[in-house]
């Protein structure tokens, strides 16, 4: 009797999972298996033949693929840490401010996240354009008369500014919502013991939301490795090579040069690299926490 009830309950559990699992298999699992198979084939036009791991060997020796990682690496090492740090500061300032005013600023800061990357790209390409930048008078004032704003050397910085603009507010919002869950007594106790607001913030509250911070690092690292929209947009103003970022190289290989199987193999290599970096961030985070005795 008990056994059948339990059996029925497990069966019902699968019924709840079924719609999700069907969708998941269809849009995630099957494409992965199909992609792995494709990556083992050579291709010219519509003709395909089995080549084993030959595509992967080519990728290992393809300098154009590895050069594409310069931009993600720059974003990963400079933009991501800076943005997360700034977002943490902003989240604490939200806490510090009167409620109404904080809500107003949160709204303004969050706005760019709701704007399609393509629109951000268009608007910022005006702001950095040589012909009609609103920054021009400011630059002239500082003595940079006639200096070109947007050339290829400046593109990484421009990308950094645009990505900052798009995601910092959202990131601050995520940190802020995590901070809301920190029991108020902890901070109160620390302040009774004589800690200042910022001491409490960084030594009491921040460690309590470390899980969220780690997740933010991982998601932003993944985003940096996949960056596509912003450089694609800037490509309309500055000549950028087809392999400016890994995502652009994969996209162009597949859909501009028609090398579908090679592009798929590159996608899988990019997936492995993303995985390793995510794991590394996770391990680093947990090791640091262990070292500090948490």
């Amino acid at each position, binding site marked *: 009797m008990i056994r059948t009830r339990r059996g029925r309950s*497990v069966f*019902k559990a*699968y019924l*709840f*999972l079924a*719609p*999700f699992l069907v*969708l*998941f298999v*269809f*849009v*995630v699992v*099957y*494409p*992965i298996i*199909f*992609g792995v198979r*494709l990556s083992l084939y050579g291709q010219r036009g519509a003709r395909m033949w089995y080549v084993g791991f030959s595509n992967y060997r080519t990728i290992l020796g393809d300098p154009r693929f590895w050069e594409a990682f310069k931009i993600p690496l720059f974003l990963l090492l400079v933009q991501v840490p800076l943005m997360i740090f700034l977002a943490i500061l902003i989240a604490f*300032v939200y806490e*510090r*401010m009167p409620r109404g*005013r904080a809500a107003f*600023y*949160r709204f303004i*800061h*969050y*706005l*760019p996240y*709701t*704007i*399609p*990357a393509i*629109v951000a790209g*268009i*608007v*910022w390409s005006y*702001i950095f*354009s040589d012909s009609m930048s609103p920054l021009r008078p400011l630059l002239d004032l500082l003595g940079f008369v006639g200096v070109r704003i947007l050339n290829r050397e400046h593109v990484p910085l421009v990308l950094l500014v645009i990505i900052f*603009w798009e995601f910092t507010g959202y990131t601050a919002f995520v940190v802020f919502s995590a901070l*809301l*869950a920190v029991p108020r007594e902890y901070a109160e106790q620390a302040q009774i013991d004589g800690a200042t607001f910022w001491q409490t913030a960084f030594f009491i509250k921040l460690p309590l939301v470390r899980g969220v911070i780690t997740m933010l690092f*991982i998601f932003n690292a*993944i985003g940096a490795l*996949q960056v*596509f*929209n912003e450089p*694609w947009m800037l490509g309309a103003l500055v000549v950028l090579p087809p392999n400016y970022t*890994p995502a652009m190289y*994969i*996209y162009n290989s*597949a859909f501009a040069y028609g090398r*579908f199987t090679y592009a*798929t193999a*590159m*996608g899988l290599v*990019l*997936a492995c690299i*993303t*995985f390793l970096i*995510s794991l590394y961030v996770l391990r680093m985070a947990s090791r640091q926490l262990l070292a500090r005795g948490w």
Partner: protein
Amino acid sequence: MSSFLYSLFMCILALFWFLPILWMFSTSFKPNQMAASYPIRWIPSPWTWENYVTVVKVGRGIDIPKAFSNSVIVSTLVAIGVLLTATPAAYIFARVKFRGRDILFWAIVATLALPVQMFYVPVYIIVDRMGLLDTLPALILPPISPALGVFLLRQFMLSIPGELEDAARIDGCSRLRFLVSIAVPLVKPALVSLGLITFLSSWNNLMWPLLVIRTPSKMTLPLALARFQGTYHFVFEAGTIMAGVTFAIMPVIVLFAFLHTWIIRGVSLSIEK
């Protein structure tokens, strides 16, 4: 004193975030020949609606209002699809023990680290074989990735006290009824946030529509805007380009203004409880 410094800090940041939007907005009301003039007039004079007329009257064959409605349909269906499939699954992962549950859950979460680029070619070929290229279903189905939803919602489902469910079950409440009439209202803020994130990620997607859509009448907003910008002159028709862009994003900003206060209140309420 320090409160003044904080306000200054926030103000400078807010300016950085808001000035591009303001510039976009004000340029969209300038006649094209005035758009590039210095010094910048933040309040356009003369003020004109002519740029918006061009956008609404489908100047040069790029139908932004149509693209807008396509985007609304596609993104809404994607968000609903994710919510409907992820909610019951997240509930099961949080509440029911079965063999291999944790392995299955973490395998699903691990797929979140996979770059989208990896999926383009295989999914493109699958969509092509199903004869769905250049149709709206091709835009709806492949980008529905419910994994993030399951991951986020499970966290919230875990916070529902187990005793609550036990009590309800003893009173003869089925799992489905518990989910629909007790669990869902409790995690409503999380559902709204997830719906919004999913909606926005579909709304902002450029690369996938770029691949599968050819027919102008089926284009989504990012695609239409990219073409719009390419069709009008960057400098001499900047006002028109800005009108197209403003027209496209304003409704979402307004909608978001309403939802935003609601989400914040939801999040803080659910935590204060």
